[in-house]
């Protein structure tokens, strides 16, 4: 079960909270804690998007860390600080697609060590410090085939349509953020979603 939107580690900014634009400006002024807030604000969304493109949580986390590093080092080049979320997702999706194409992203952290510990615990049926699996066998049996078919269908979509479906329909990102991530207009996002949906309907007609 994924953390809910109320998870304090993953809250999107409320009107009372500091805006993305302000956090970006604070970071550029030398306030490193401001960037930590951005990490906490977007880490779940970034890992989720990457996971939908890669199909593997470990790879998604690795790519997400790399994306946060890249965004930090090139933060000064961000034209509109308030568009940080969409800009970060563009970095995440580009890195994920590159990762899929075979280019290995250098790990910046000893993730393997941490996940190794987690994997050992998972193998013995224990919980993990980092991750825990959904071990409900009934749920997994029921959804396994359809889930695999859905993932396969998603992978068949053209890149823009797949990204639009993943970010807008599945992760329910705001359309303007998706538009920023895809470097297109909001209208184009609607069109990509529609075209992707039409193709999915055709591919999955036996399940509808």
């Amino acid at each position, binding site marked *: 079960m*994924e953390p809910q939107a109320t998870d304090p580690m*993953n809250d999107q900014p409320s009107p009372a909270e500091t805006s993305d634009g302000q956090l970006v400006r604070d970071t550029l002024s030398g306030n490193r804690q401001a960037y930590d807030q951005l990490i906490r604000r977007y880490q779940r969304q970034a890992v989720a998007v990457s996971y939908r493109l890669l199909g593997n949580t470990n790879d998604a986390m690795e790519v997400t*860390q790399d994306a946060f590093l890249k965004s930090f080092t090139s933060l000064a080049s961000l034209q509109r600080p308030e568009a940080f979320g969409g800009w970060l997702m563009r970095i995440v999706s580009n890195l994920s697609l590159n990762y899929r194409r075979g280019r290995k992203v250098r790990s910046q952290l000893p993730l393997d060590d*941490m996940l190794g510990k987690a994997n050992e615990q998972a193998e013995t049926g224990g919980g993990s410090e980092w*991750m825990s699996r959904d071990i409900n066998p009934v749920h997994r049996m029921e959804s396994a085939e359809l889930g695999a078919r859905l993932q396969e269908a998603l992978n068949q979509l053209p890149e823009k349509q797949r990204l639009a479906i993943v970010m807008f329909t*599945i992760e329910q990102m705001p359309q303007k953020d998706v538009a920023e991530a895809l470097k297109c207009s909001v209208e184009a996002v*609607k069109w990509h979603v529609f075209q992707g949906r*039409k193709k999915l309907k055709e591919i999955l007609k036996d399940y*509808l």
Partner: protein
Amino acid sequence: MTREQLEYQISQYVDHTLSTHEKAALEHRLGTDVEAQQILAEYRSINDMLRTQLPTMEEVNWEQFASATSRAVDEADADAPPVTYRIFTWSRMAVAASVLLAGGIAFLTFRSGNGASGPQPVPAAPSQVVRIDGPAAEPSTQPAVAQISVGPATELAETQYPLDGIVYQPSRVSLIATPDDTMQDTHRSPYQR
């Protein structure tokens, strides 16, 4: 409205991105159009599947992940110049580029304004003429093969004012590629048509 347009509207309806007016019009149509209802049901089904049936990501300890990412950023930041330094560096470079550009434009403007000291035309380099001599014409060793006959036949000259004919009538020209006189056209009057 084509089926494609209808499907696009229904897709936006599912996403709640239609305008109020478009939404009302579509809902009115959905009340009676069975085909539209079918499309709507399919799109909603796809949305539900995408949100509930895809393989779920393993749970992540977000607090630890955030801390680890933050440490990675710290490590990367320690290797790089401070952000503020980078900003000032970029600012300085931008200012220097602007000054150079402005100076260059002013210099060119000043030079073109004086006129006399403007760029001088560069004389063209002298062109080279290359003479190529082909094979020289060889004089023929054979007798001429063409004769030209102008004017009326000689037997008509006395009686039919051949000079008038030459002056007032088109002359005849016979070109015969042989010196043989018998082959010449001497039997037609220049007045004949």
